[in-house]
């Protein structure tokens, strides 16, 4: 029976071009034609007449009674032991896309992975995730872009022939003594590493080069010089009382944001009686979410980082007595920053997002002076996910240009898109004797290679990872391969002539090197997904020689040189690996609130100098990009997000935005993503960006309530004094509703929320929320149930920035409920504001009357509609849908339900186990995904619950509470570590 089930997936594979035909009568005949043929051949008799009458009445009855064709669902003859239809199974696994690592748990319903959650057992990520991780499940069902079978020059090829040809070519390369290069993204699996070294050994003269589009090469080399280790240490933001970041968006995209967010948020918590929070200083050019969260933010051009860091070093050196660097212009904020850092020696962190070795050496020196090495910055659990050294890539490029390379195997890399000189590969690949690409989906490079040997999606394959020294995790397949693909490791083993399978290889390696033999240990690690090995960590000594060599090299104050381009990664796209993921494409950037495009962000001042307005196209070194005027952007800089402008990446990604990777430069031993002296000229054309928020000021309304740490310590309800006033005025003519059982509530700690938008994607994945596309977003019809509101305050050049996640507030006195003429939206006995979709007639009155505007209308049919050709338009894409949540029809209103399906599931579980529900047992998708733990959900009737404590906190308030809507969602005031309130 099982075989049959899989057969249907194979049918899916072949149906890529004729999705809709499946529902029709075969051979292009309509029902009428068939009946007509039947009739014409036969004499008309009473018998025939009745026969056809019977047939047509029956078909009419069937056709009119069932809108959808009946599809056969065959029950298991022999039910697998651990599969209960309708119950989800969760499997621990590992996510690594070449840039970002996460230990995950995959929720599988009836054989289909439908949701990714963070793995709480992981010491490293401790249950957190990011928007990219949350969205990655959709990539599994990407019928547009995934490669479905092996091919040679675009034509399908049999596995056996392919293996034979590739092995032959490898052999001839080896015999000819030509260089074979294995170009991969960072390899963090210890057994894969072992496998690669064996492969290299099998083909002498071959090389392994690691390539990352946005590399940390400068840092790796700096650490090698400073500490003698070419690794990136781990940063413990949870231990840091003072954080200084120079251009590092460590809460958004830098290194390991989910880990850092958790640590950072733990030091911003004031809910457990803490009396202090960390002090965070951010120097940056473009406004990132990290900069938005900072207690103090200074705008600075990336070309000024070196001088700034040197000045900071000098300031600290003068305090510690270390030799200082000559000829450094100091920055006005350095004295305060240095003082703060000096006071929290050993409990501070200084990070820099630049890819320049010199700047990273300065950072190392600063951290060394502060005694942070070994305290907040540790090498014992160093981060191993960043491995690329840009110099090696340049060597490869030179080889390709000179025609010295014989063969190239690409795995997890797409240099034609993201290498700054794509022509090296577009021309070089054709000249090679052998070029093989092992990527699982189509990309720009795919078309230039001879052999495409598609790998599995990460949810289909075995794997392992060592993201940090001593932290191991396993990846296991949670579905059979959807397409005719093969794990790249399997391919390498084949081409080495090894008979063993990748799974066996992996198990053997783990048995011999990591966990030792024994079925039980293996099963335990597999079940938990992670394994921690004790490491003896010794803080490495700092080599000052590296620093002294910098003297004289760092000069100037970093000003001048015209406009500076800053290429950055945004929350949704990162390096662009997931550009074909419609969820991420439609995820509004938390700061700019723009989706479906990248843009050139310029400061208001620079815009007026250059005569630019929002949406005006500018030419930036020859690339045409629309302008967005970004408050908080450093003057004379222009930020553009990487990862857009794909040309062969899939239907969603192609043609969206502009690819700015070619603007990067290789200088001083590493690729630089900022470029002074850019040629910027305004064009006549304008272009409208799709934005989900049009107004950026709170207009003096008490929407996000903010205070300073000082005021908070004096008066815990500072900034929130009005809450008590409103509570006092609580009066009603009517009988107050009593919630006898549960009364669900949610609270958002605005002090922990970083605006990272993971919750938005988690909600979209959990609740089958459709993607509507750029044109509809521009009509303000985005469907996401959760949104991150972002407001600016104060001066437009130095704005205060606040984030506020807004979902349905589940008002106990809901304005939407009493206006619905058909009672489609009503209140549950547990305080939930619920929607009955099949009762809704779509008057939209509730949308109008919701003061929070959280209700969403199904303006069109978003499922099986060619106009919305995203995941919900194909059978394969729809496999990601959560069967517990109704897919909404056109014409009905929908909104956040507090994940009622999860509430129900846990209630039933507790009932079956005959016990009361535990606090924190029910986790709505947003809460579970939140890496900072900013969202709390629970029963307000339980006085011991966390939510009750949050609601009793003097910082708690309700959005628009003066309307007396009695929301079940509370917000805790934002407390900044500032002396004075920023106006």
């Amino acid at each position, binding site marked *: 029976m099982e075989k049959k089930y899989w057969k249907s997936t194979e049918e899916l594979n072949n149906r890529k071009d004729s999705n809709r035909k499946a529902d029709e009568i075969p051979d292009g005949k309509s029902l009428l034609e068939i009946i007509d043929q039947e009739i014409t051949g036969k004499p008309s008799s009473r018998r025939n007449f009745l026969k056809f009458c019977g047939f047509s009445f029956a078909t009419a009855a069937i056709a009119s009674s069932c809108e959808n064709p009946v599809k056969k669902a065959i029950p298991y003859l022999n039910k697998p032991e651990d599969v209960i239809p309708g119950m989800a199974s969760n499997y621990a696994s590992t996510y690594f896309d070449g840039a970002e690592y996460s230990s995950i748990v995959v929720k599988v319903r009836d054989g289909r992975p439908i949701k990714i959650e963070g793995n709480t057992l992981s010491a490293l990520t401790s249950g957190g995730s990011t928007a990219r991780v949350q969205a990655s499940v959709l990539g599994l069902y990407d019928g547009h872009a995934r490669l479905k079978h092996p091919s040679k020059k675009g034509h399908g090829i049999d596995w056996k022939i392919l293996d034979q040809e590739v092995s032959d070519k490898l052999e001839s390369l080896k015999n000819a003594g030509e260089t074979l290069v294995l170009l991969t993204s960072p390899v963090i699996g210890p057994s894969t590493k072992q496998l690669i070294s064996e492969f290299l050994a099998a083909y002498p003269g071959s090389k392994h080069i690691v390539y990352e589009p946005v590399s940390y090469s400068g840092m790796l080399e700096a650490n090698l010089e400073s500490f003698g280790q070419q690794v990136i240490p781990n940063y413990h933001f949870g231990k840091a009382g003072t954080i200084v970041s120079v251009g590092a968006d460590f809460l958004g995209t830098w290194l390991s944001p989910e880990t850092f967010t958790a640590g950072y948020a733990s030091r911003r918590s004031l809910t457990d009686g803490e009396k202090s929070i960390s002090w965070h200083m951010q120097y940056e050019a473009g406004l990132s979410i990290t900069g938005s969260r900072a207690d103090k933010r200074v705008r600075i051009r990336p070309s000024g980082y070196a001088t700034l860091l040197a000045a900071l070093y000098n300031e600290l050196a003068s305090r510690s007595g270390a030799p200082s660097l000559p000829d450094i212009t100091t920055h006005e904020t350095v004295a305060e920053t240095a003082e703060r850092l000096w006071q929290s020696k050993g409990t501070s962190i200084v990070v820099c997002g630049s890819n320049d070795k010199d700047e990273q050496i300065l950072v190392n020196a600063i951290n060394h002076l502060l005694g942070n090495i070994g305290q907040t910055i540790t090498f014992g659990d160093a981060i191993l996910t960043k491995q690329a050294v840009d110099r090696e890539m340049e060597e490869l490029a030179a080889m390709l240009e000179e025609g010295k390379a014989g063969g190239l195997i690409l795995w997890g890399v797409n240099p034609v898109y993201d290498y700054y000189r794509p022509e090296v590969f577009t021309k070089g690949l054709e000249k090679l004797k052998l070029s093989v690409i092992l990527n699982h989906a189509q990309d720009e490079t795919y078309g230039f290679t001879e052999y495409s040997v598609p790998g599995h999606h990460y949810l289909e394959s075995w794997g392992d990872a060592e993201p940090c020294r001593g932290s191991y995790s396993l990846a296991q397949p949670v579905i059979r391969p959807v397409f005719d693909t093969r794990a790249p490791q399997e391919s390498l083993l084949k081409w080495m002539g090894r008979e063993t399978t990748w799974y066996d290889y992996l198990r053997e390696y783990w048995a011999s090197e990591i966990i030792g033999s024994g079925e039980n240990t293996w099963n335990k690690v597999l079940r938990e997904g992670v394994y921690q090995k004790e490491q003896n960590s010794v803080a490495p000594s700092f080599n000052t020689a590296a620093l002294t060599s910098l003297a004289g090299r760092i000069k100037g104050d970093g000003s001048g040189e015209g406009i500076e381009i800053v290429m950055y990664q945004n929350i949704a796209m990162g390096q662009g690996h997931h550009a074909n993921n419609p969820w991420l494409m439609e995820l509004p950037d938390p700061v700019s609130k723009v989706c479906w495009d990248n843009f050139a962000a310029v400061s208001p001042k620079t815009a007026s100098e250059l005569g630019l307005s929002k949406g005006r196209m500018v030419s930036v070194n020859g690339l045409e990009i629309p302008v967005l005027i970004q408050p908080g952007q450093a003057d004379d800089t222009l930020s553009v997000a990487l990862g857009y402008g794909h040309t062969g990446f899939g239907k969603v990604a192609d043609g969206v935005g502009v690819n700015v990777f070619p603007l990067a430069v290789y200088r001083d031993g590493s690729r630089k993503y900022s470029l002074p002296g850019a040629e910027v000229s305004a064009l006549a054309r304008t272009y409208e960006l799709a934005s989900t*928020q*049009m*107004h*950026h*000021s*709170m*207009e*003096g*309304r008490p*929407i996000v309530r903010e205070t300073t740490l000082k005021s908070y310590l004096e008066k815990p309800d500072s900034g929130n004094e009005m809450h008590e006033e409103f509570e006092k005025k609580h009066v009603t003519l009517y009988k107050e509703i009593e919630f006898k059982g549960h009364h669900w509530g949610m609270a958002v700690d605005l002090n922990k929320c970083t605006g990272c938008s993971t919750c938005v994607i988690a909600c979209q994945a959990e609740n089958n929320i459709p993607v509507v596309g750029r044109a*509809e977003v521009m*009509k*303000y*019809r*985005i469907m996401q149930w959760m*949104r991150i*509101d*972002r*407001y600016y305050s104060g001066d437009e050049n130095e704005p205060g920035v606040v984030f*506020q996640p*807004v979902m349905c507030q589940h008002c106990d006195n809901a*304005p939407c409920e*009493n*206006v*619905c*003429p*058909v*009672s489609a939206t009503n209140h549950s006995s547990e305080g939930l504001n619920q929607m009955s979709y099949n*009762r*809704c*007639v*779509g*008057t*939209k*009155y509730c*949308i*109008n*009357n919701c*003061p*929070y*505007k959280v*209700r*969403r*209308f*199904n*303006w*069109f*049919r978003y499922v099986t509609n060619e106009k919305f050709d995203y995941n919900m338009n194909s059978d394969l894409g729809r496999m990601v849908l959560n069967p517990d949540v109704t897919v909404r*029809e*056109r*014409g*009905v*209103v929908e909104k956040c339900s507090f994940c009622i399906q999860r509430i129900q599931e846990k209630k039933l579980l507790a009932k079956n186990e005959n016990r009361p529900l535990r606090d924190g047992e029910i986790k709505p998708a947003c809460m579970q995904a939140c890496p900072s733990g900013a969202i709390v959900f629970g029963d307000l009737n339980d006085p011991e619950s966390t939510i009750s404590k949050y609601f009793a906190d003097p910082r708690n308030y309700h*959005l*628009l509470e003066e*309307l007396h*809507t009695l929301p079940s969602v509370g917000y805790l005031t934002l407390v900044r570590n500032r002396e004075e309130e920023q106006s």
Partner: protein
Amino acid sequence: MYKTEVRGPLILGDKNYRQISSDIIAPIDRPAPLWWKGVFGLGILATLFGLFAMYQTVAKGIGTWGVNNSVGWGWEIINFVWWIGIGHAGTAFSIFLLILRQKWRTSINRAAEAMTVVAVGAAAIFPALHMGRVWLAFYIFPYPNTRGPLWVNFNSPLFWDFIAISAYLLISASFWYYGMVPDFATIRDKATSKIKKAVYGFFAFGWTGSTSEWLRYEALSYVLGGIAAVLVVSVHSIVSTDFAVSVIPGWHTTVFPPYFVVGAIFSGFAMVMTLMIIIRKMYKFQDYVTNSHLDAIARILIFISLIMGTAYATEIFIAWYSGSQYEMFTFFKNRITGDYTFQFWAMVVCNAIIPQLFWFKKIRQNLTIAFIISLLINLGMWYERFNILITSLSKDYLPSSWVTYHPTWVEVGVYIGTLGIFITGVLLFFKFIPMIAISEVKSILKVTSIKKNESKNSSHGQ
């Protein structure tokens, strides 16, 4: 103490009873004039365009409109309220003047009532069409059903709306229809063709004109008039609760029910004026719809315009007096100034200022200017509804969800369609139904003038 002034003749031109009948029935007997055919053609075209737009809406979804997740209601509700407002005049005209025993209404009430029925019919399209799932519109009927039974939400203004509008449409139509029964009998009696006799005979319900029938007729007119008088006030009050019951700044206002009723009568009277000027001109009914009729309407319009101005000022005052920053923002930053300044001032100028020109007798008597002003009032009333709906929804509580709204061709198309329906409906009325209530007009004919007429006629040797 009480002094009755002798009123002047309400009908000019020394008519007699026979002449009245033949004058008014004449357009029914004559073939339709060329302008009628031309305008009717245009009306049909507009209707067809509207039907296509409605088809688009139902087939593809409300997404074909410009409304969005912040501004959930757009042109369709503006137009709904606008048509309902226009549909107020007929009944208000007949009923209030009937109760106040203003005899001059008799020349106008038939046309006004016809207009009401057509306008309310046009209005009723919108609430149905704006539903996301119009095929389930029956969910808002309160009837015992097999789904539970699930009842409607009796708290919802939309349900009240549904009840109020259907009741109003029913009573208006009955009032209009039974008023026509004696006239149908007149046409039946005068008709020469058999078909016409049969058709009008059917609609005349076998009216013979006996005294007992007239007695019942009179009694019924007062009973229905009494019911309808209440409905005239209730229907637009209830439409106003669609807004007043909500929490949205600029909607949540207790002044809305009287303000809406007066506004509706205002736009209705303006539309009556527009139509009567056309009828007068096209069908040469100057003797029946006299200058003094139009003068009376113009005077009423001045008065209502003053009330409208007061209402606008009240709203603004209350917004300030409430101390609510949300109300203040809506009125002062999004209407008086801001993105929607034009629409706000267009409303004020058209509704509160321009009608004040009617204070001048010369303007009241210049029919061209009066005609233009009557059209401007209806434009102003349209802007009033635009103001209420769009300015309040586009910028409400959370600035993060502030958006703009622009209609699409589909929404405009549906509006054009309802204009087409209105025009064709009114034209059909012109052609097939006596435009002026024959029997009622006869009741106000001065007998003295008949005598004079007869003598005049005899002198001409007829």
